[in-house]
């Protein structure tokens, strides 16, 4: 795989999407926070201290930060599953603690300890996270339709990988969204791989965003390793959707520096992925790239970056301490059965 995926069409119209210095500082800070989170998840999984599985985000956390940092609180976010969506979620203001507690099966977990990796933050307009790839396309049409009806100018950030565009529902959703001019951003984080399958083999066109052409949907392609470029593209698409111009497709060309999920061999087809390729790709690790930029642009000094790192580490460690101190849920079958259906008004009487 090419370590420097060709970027044919960079985010444009800098005018209303341009990032201020404060915006760039915020993006960089969020990137460090997500990076610290992802590293601890990896370590925890490796030492058997995480429930279920973990799909490491290393190399691929910039698109999530770009997509979610400048969403409004009442915009709907549907995170990509990689890193189990927390890069996206923390950029939208979600607290790490209840997610870490969930991933360790604790009572204080965001899904009451019932769900292992499923995040549930409806208070941040993040819903229905599922282990079924492609699960979020059709609901996104519904979020978008509701946004259109309510007329409050909300948008829907619908994030997923290249692989998810194999699902028929992706195409159904694009069709419906474009027909109804719904405020949805189809945000594709193309890391070139889906488990062992290369995007170049599973999709006939080099860019997943070509799919948008068939629906007459505008599209952008960005360097997914560049958190600032991702954020500019997100802003442009968000503005477009918010102004009632309908959906937009944004493809972030990103990478995967680790195996698909911890413990699964890192193969392409049936042959191991070349170590040299991965090392070459690692040169485009997003934190490294962002750091070069912020230093070159004089946004932060090296000392300030160290401080930000330390603060990010402290935030994540404090979240783990909190999660670890939570008790396991006490619910047995009878109690759990009372949570299968939502109560109706008359049930309270």
């Amino acid at each position, binding site marked *: 795989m090419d370590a420097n995926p060709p970027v044919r069409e960079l985010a444009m119209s800098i005018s209303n999407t341009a990032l201020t210095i404060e915006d760039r500082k915020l993006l960089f800070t969020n990137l460090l926070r997500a990076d610290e989170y992802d590293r601890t998840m990896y370590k925890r999984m490796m030492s058997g201290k995480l429930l279920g599985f973990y799909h490491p985000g290393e190399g691929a956390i910039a698109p999530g930060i770009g997509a979610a940092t400048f969403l409004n609180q009442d915009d709907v976010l549907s995170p990509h599953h990689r890193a189990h969506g927390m890069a996206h979620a923390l950029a939208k203001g979600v607290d790490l603690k209840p997610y870490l507690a969930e991933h360790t099966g604790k009572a204080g977990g965001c899904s009451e300890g019932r769900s292992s990796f499923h995040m549930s933050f409806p208070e941040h307009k993040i819903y229905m996270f599922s*282990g079924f790839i492609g699960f979020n396309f059709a609901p996104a049409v519904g979020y978008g339709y509701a946004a259109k009806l309510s007329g409050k100018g909300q948008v829907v950030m619908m994030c997923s990988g290249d692989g*998810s565009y194999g699902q028929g529902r992706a195409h159904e959703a694009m069709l419906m969204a474009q027909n109804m001019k719904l405020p949805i951003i189809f945000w594709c984080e193309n890391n070139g791989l889906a*488990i062992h*399958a290369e995007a170049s083999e599973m999709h006939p066109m080099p860019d997943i965003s070509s799919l948008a052409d068939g629906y007459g949907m505008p599209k952008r392609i960005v360097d997914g390793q560049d958190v600032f470029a991702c954020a500019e593209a997100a802003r442009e698409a968000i503005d477009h959707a918010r102004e009632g111009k309908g959906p937009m497709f944004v493809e972030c060309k990103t990478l995967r520096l680790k195996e698909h999920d911890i413990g*699964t061999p890192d193969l392409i*087809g049936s042959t191991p992925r070349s170590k040299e390729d991965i090392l070459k790709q690692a040169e485009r690790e997003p934190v490294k790239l962002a750091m070069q930029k912020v230093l070159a642009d004089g946004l932060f000094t090296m000392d300030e970056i160290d401080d930000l790192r330390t603060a990010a580490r402290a935030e994540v460690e404090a979240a783990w301490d909190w999660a670890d101190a939570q008790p396991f*849920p006490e619910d047995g*079958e009878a109690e*759990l059965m009372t949570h299968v259906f939502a109560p109706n008004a008359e049930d309270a009487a």
Partner: protein
Amino acid sequence: MTRQLPFIEAIREALREEMIHDDKVFLVGQDIRGAIYPHTKGLVDEFGPDRVVDTPISESGMYGMASGAALQGYRPVVDFMFGGFTYVTFSEATVTTGQQYFLHGSKSNMPLVITAGVGAGMRLANDHSMAIHGTFAHHPGIKVAMPSTPYDAKGMFKAAIRDNSPVVIPWHMALMMDKGEVPDEDYVVPLGKADIKREGADVTVVANSQQLKFALQVAEKLDGEISVEVFDPRSFVPFDMDLLLTSLAKTSRLVIVDEDWESGGFAATLSARVMEQGFDLLDAPVLRVTFPNMPIPGGVLEPRVMPNPERIEAAIRAVME
């Protein structure tokens, strides 16, 4: 001659030998060349990418493709990785393929196989833990079977591939590395033949896959106190009612264990059939051990609601009272 083989390796042998035996057999799934589970490992090297086909993440496409190829004379095996993913292609997998033979005048065979890893125990929550055998058994025109030992796995996969109707044959992930005797020579375990995995006189326990292991543990534990006959249906559709009635004539008591939801599951169907066909044989009401009707939770909650040896033992004691 026989050898000791792990369960998953027995499935691999069945796939490989049937691919050698019949060049119309091909495998289709996601990441099966690289082998998410070892049952497809190395097969692409031997048979090439036309017969070990990796698809995009397109479950409906993958399954629909298999049905079309089956009508053109091929015998595809569709691998869904996790059982829950079959729900993505529900109409193709249940209605159109299952009803094709009958509704189109008994003219065209539909020889295809659906397989997937299934089962609770990994604390991953519903999407990756739910059962599929009961759901498919509800739909006419589909055979449904699930092996519990390496011997059964190899023989039943072979029978499934040779069958002229759609066969759903999930395998339980908790059994993956279990070892057992597998013959060297070609054999099949016919679909529709149950197996008494342990003889007993006081109570019949119907159980399969992981739950069969639990039932055998309980039977061993109760040895000398209660004599438990452990009945492995092996296949749910068709079901070996004759053997079950023979067993009940001896024991007159029945516990049905099913790692599936209580409502509308296979255990419910079987319980009703026993009422209809074997009521006079029974000395006590039939008891079931199943998942309660809630999404299977992950984490520490899963074992609290999952059928397990304690629940099986409690049901056996209750039915003996």
